[in-house]
């Protein structure tokens, strides 16, 4: 497997999406493009995560981390599918409840998956070998960026919910889940830095890159309305989501490649 080409996939996918959104006429380059891009890339993400988790045994932390993420992404694919490009089913109570349930499950699974993945850093014992001041510094940087990215969305939905607008409960739940997941990125980043130069660096690096993509989605949602037109804001938000989904798909494949037997590993005594 050419893992370097695999690592370029998120960037290529995002550029392809932007070109399609730019060139296609409104009927194809709007809601329909966003819908199909979300279904395709989220399906790939769920598949990649499932394959990555399948490399491990039931007792391994990484199996549960990858599989919780796969379950979360599968819920989101299903939700996007039943809502359709124009979210028309949200007018039907049954579909609306199913959509809410899927979103809650997806957010729960995303946070649980991130917890398992972050736990790998501490359970491996690498945390003890890493300079504690550097760990604190990286964690502070990541937490600040996560708060900056999610704060506007979180504040807006919390204010509206407290004012009695129940339609903001789900955005509040999503923003809280995003914040929780982003705060858990620092152990994954430290792990990616620790194993640089080795096979595992690709999968952990791509996991972190995927979270950076989601951070940009939150930035576009939170700050976009103040600076960008609605159309550009939507295109950017979806482009970053495509990037993040393809990055986690690539991370899953890189994880499979990393834990497969290395060429030359079976050679005998030198």
């Amino acid at each position, binding site marked *: 497997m050419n893992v370097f080409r695999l690592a370029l996939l998120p960037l290529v996918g995002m550029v392809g999406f932007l070109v399609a959104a730019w060139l296609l006429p409104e009927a194809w380059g709007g809601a329909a493009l966003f819908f199909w891009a979300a279904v395709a890339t989220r399906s790939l993400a769920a598949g990649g995560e499932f394959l990555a988790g399948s*490399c*491990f*045994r039931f*007792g*391994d*932390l*990484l*199996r549960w981390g990858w599989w919780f993420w796969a379950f979360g992404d599968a819920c989101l694919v299903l939700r996007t599918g039943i809502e359709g490009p124009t979210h028309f089913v949200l007018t039907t109570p049954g579909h609306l409840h199913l959509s809410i349930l899927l979103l809650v499950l997806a957010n729960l699974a995303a946070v649980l998956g991130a917890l398992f993945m972050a736990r*790998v850093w501490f*359970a*491996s*014992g*690498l945390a*003890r*070998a890493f300079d504690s001041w550097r760990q604190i510094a990286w964690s502070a940087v990541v937490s600040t960026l996560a708060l900056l990215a999610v704060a506007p969305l979180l504040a807006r939905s919390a204010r509206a919910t407290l004012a009695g607008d129940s339609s903001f409960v789900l955005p509040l739940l999503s923003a809280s889940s995003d914040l929780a997941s982003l705060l858990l990125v620092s152990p994954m980043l430290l792990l990616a830095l*620790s*194993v*640089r*130069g*080795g*096979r*595992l*660096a690709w999968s952990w690096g791509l996991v972190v890159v995927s979270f950076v993509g989601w951070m940009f989605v939150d930035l576009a949602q939170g700050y976009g309305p103040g600076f960008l037109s609605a159309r550009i804001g939507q295109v950017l938000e979806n482009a970053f989501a495509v990037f993040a989904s393809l990055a986690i798909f690539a991370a899953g494949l890189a994880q499979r490649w*990393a*834990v*497969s*037997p*290395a060429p030359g*590993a*079976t*050679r*005998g*005594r*030198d």
Partner: protein
Amino acid sequence: MYLRPATALPRQLTTNWSHHRRPVGCGMVARSPADDVEETLARWLGPNTARNAVRVFSERSLKKPPGALTAADLPELLRALQPMLRTLVGTEQSNEILAQLERRIGP
């Protein structure tokens, strides 16, 4: 014990691995079993973490610097490394790596 001429090694190689090599006369350096463990682990963990892991676990479990390890110390070192490897690459792959190392360097 594997021998190779010290003078034939480029500077950067001797610098990176110097804490594991002991001069044994005739211009040769000894290659400790720790070097093989480190080299194998580096494929997954990268050179820095592989070197640190071998150093930390050999000092903690065997109370010896990596350069002083012999083939007889290997099972103990591998046992100490197992939990870390199991967490990072999974149970099956960690067993495979450790079995390969035992076959490669074992007494």
